[in-house]
């Protein structure tokens, strides 16, 4: 995982074409060509799907998947209606009980119905962002510290090198066991399953960010370090004024890398541990073996892909905002 792979500078010809900007050209480049690509893919998909017809089911074509998107949305709407009825019934029941038993503290419980596809999307998004932010909070200070201190770096390096190649999914059983042992509140703030998924995501986000941050910090130009020395900046000021600004591009590269990995790992972890989210949705559908299952799984696959893409774009925008060295970032 080299951190430099993402920061290839733009070829000169590309810059030129942008300069003599031609509306027609860019329309072709940004609209027509990608659209053709998608169309060709859809045609290929449709043609191949028709030819994959096993005894375990027919591979879903684009039309079947589109239909399932509609069905999933309707399911969501219906579930919302049921939830509303659930809350109404609950209020009536609470009132009845209060009449019988005045000491009762009425409580409104969450709707107990199954999470819909749309709920699962939000669950996954919240989980991945929480895990990622927790990792940021740990990895960046750690990365800065190892980048600044050779001793610390060589102390921590072997651990990082050993844990970095371990699939975070291998951690999952350990995480699950530790969480169940330590997190034993009777009225927990967040569900155990959420913690399990989140910590797994954190574990996989950690290493790319630590490494990139540490490389970024260690690679600060010696001129800058000398300036800091001349000005006799305190260590805190040194980090704040010199180290952080100078290593921001590398930090963001690490963050972007790890968010991409995190999203992939989260879906797999949800499938494996049956934790709520898109991964569980896919696994549940696989277990159903209904004639719609494959199309629903495909719908989920598309959503997972689109979200992964959007997450990456969002990080890229953030990186552009935070970095002044615009040329070092492309796509």
């Amino acid at each position, binding site marked *: 995982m080299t951190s430099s792979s993402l920061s290839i500078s733009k070829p000169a010809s590309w810059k030129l074409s942008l300069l003599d900007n031609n509306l027609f050209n860019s329309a072709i480049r940004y609209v027509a060509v990608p659209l053709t690509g998608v169309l060709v893919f859809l045609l290929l998909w449709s043609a191949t799907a028709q030819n994959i017809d096993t*005894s375990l089911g027919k591979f879903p074509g684009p039309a079947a998947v589109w239909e399932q998107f509609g069905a999933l949305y309707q399911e969501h709407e219906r579930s919302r209606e049921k939830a509303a009825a659930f809350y109404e019934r*609950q209020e009536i029941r609470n009132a009845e009980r209060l009449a019988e038993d005045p000491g*009762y503290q009425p409580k409104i419980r969450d709707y*107990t119905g199954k999470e819909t596809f749309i709920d699962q999307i939000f669950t996954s998004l919240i989980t991945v962002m929480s895990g990622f932010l927790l990792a940021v909070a740990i990895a960046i200070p750690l990365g800065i510290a190892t980048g600044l201190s050779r001793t610390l770096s060589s102390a921590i390096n072997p651990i990082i090198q050993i844990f970095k190649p371990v699939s975070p999914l291998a951690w999952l059983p350990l995480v699950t066991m530790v969480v169940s042992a330590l997190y034993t509140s009777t009225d927990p703030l967040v569900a155990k399953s959420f913690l399990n998924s989140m910590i797994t995501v954190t574990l996989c986000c950690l290493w790319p960010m630590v490494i990139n941050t540490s490389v970024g910090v260690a690679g600060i130009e010696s001129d800058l370090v000398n300036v800091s020395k001349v000005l006799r900046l305190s260590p805190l000021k040194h980090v704040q004024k010199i180290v952080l600004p100078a290593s921001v591009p590398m930090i963001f590269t690490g963050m972007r890398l790890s968010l991409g990995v995190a999203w992939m790992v989260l879906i797999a972890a949800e499938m494996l541990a*049956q934790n709520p989210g898109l991964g569980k949705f896919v696994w549940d559908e696989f277990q159903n073996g*209904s004639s719609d299952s494959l199309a629903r799984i495909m719908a989920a696959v598309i959503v997972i892909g689109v979200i992964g893409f959007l997450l990456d774009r969002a990080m890229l925008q953030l990186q552009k905002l935070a970095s002044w060295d615009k040329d070092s970032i492309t796509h």
Partner: protein
Amino acid sequence: MKWTQLFRRAAITVGLASTLGLATPATSAELGYPEKEELTFGFIKLTDMAPIAIAYEKGFFEDEGLYVTIEAQANWKVLLDGVIDGRLDGAHMLAGQPIAATMGFGTKAEIITPFSMDLNGNGITVSNEIWEQMKPNIPKMDNGLPVHPIKADALKPVVEKYKAAGKPFNMGMVFPVSTHNYELRYWLAAGGIHPGYYAPHKGDISGQIDADALLSVTPPPQMPATLEAGTIYGYCVGEPWNQQAVFKGIGVPVVTDYEIWKDNPEKVFGITKAFAEKYPNTTIRITRALIRAAMWLDENNNANRPEAVKILSRSNYVGADYEVIANSMTGTFEYEKGDKREVPDFNVFFRYHATYPYYSDAIWYLTQMRRWGQISEDKSDDWYKEMAAKVYRPDIYRAAAESLIKDKLASADQFPDFSSEDGYREPQTHFIDGIVYNGQKPNEYIGKFPIGLKAGQKL
């Protein structure tokens, strides 16, 4: 006649209950409010989880003031661990699971059951290839269809052929202490095919010692795919995974568990003993809701079954297609494609006292655990009875049933006569090999099997 007597007694009890009901309005307050109101129950995608789904969908849980979340689990191990570590408050379980857990075979934990979930509901399916080889050994009726029940005698020559060719004959079941494991073993052994022994005291929990057919674990929903892949040649599983194989043309169900042992007890609802002690009212209320659901499922000669199938076919429950689930749930069963036969009692949820946790049902499971070596040493008859009484809790069932009778949601004739009930069914005669099972004499029963460990034997 016995029937009229029964009817009269029931009428009297109902009359008594209703006069009592008039004197003191039968509010559920007498039972006490549930101590824990928010509950999570686990299940495996099988049609016999129906009482839980129905209790939820028909509002029976809410009537008890319980707010229940129902979650499908990946496999029986995950489900059991969930109940043990408290992630789940209760679950749809294999009857053998609470018994094995309490005994300490596998994970050790005290789990009890106040409610037996159903009778029958499983089948044994073989791949098309094996079916073709079995077919010549099966007698035919006048219309050319095979005579049922099909015994494992028809499979024996096929297994021997594989053995002679040095090929292992692999079959799937869902869990080492599953009903399916014992049913498959029972059927095979009744036909002279040795399904292999367990030897936990030597660390051998594969269950393949001396085996002619090698049984291994596959989660229920993956059975058809595993059969299709050729990893196993046959399997024993609950519905809809036998009918699914027929629909997809992957395999042929050869026998149902109804034919192996008529009206055999199947799944149970399991909770930890600690849960029942900490939340006694909640436990009774859960049992009440489940009893009502079971009654609803069998009401008016299965009139509600089509609606139940519609509910089960939703993706958050079993999720298979309506037609596939309906096949067994509405009283028929399709064997070879096109060979659809009436099996009105394929799934029984309430009649024949299906939900009452009989000690003798638990003891049958224990005898099979002993027969196949999961219990490695001899135990006295009393030990079997004590173990059954630790796990099966008719006392909780009784409290729930009596409070339902009091609330006029059920009548006394629908339940066993609690005043005389000792928890042991009459000796059971409807086994495929004709052996009679008397729950009062487990050791004598174990001694009757030609294949299986007997008194004094230890591997």
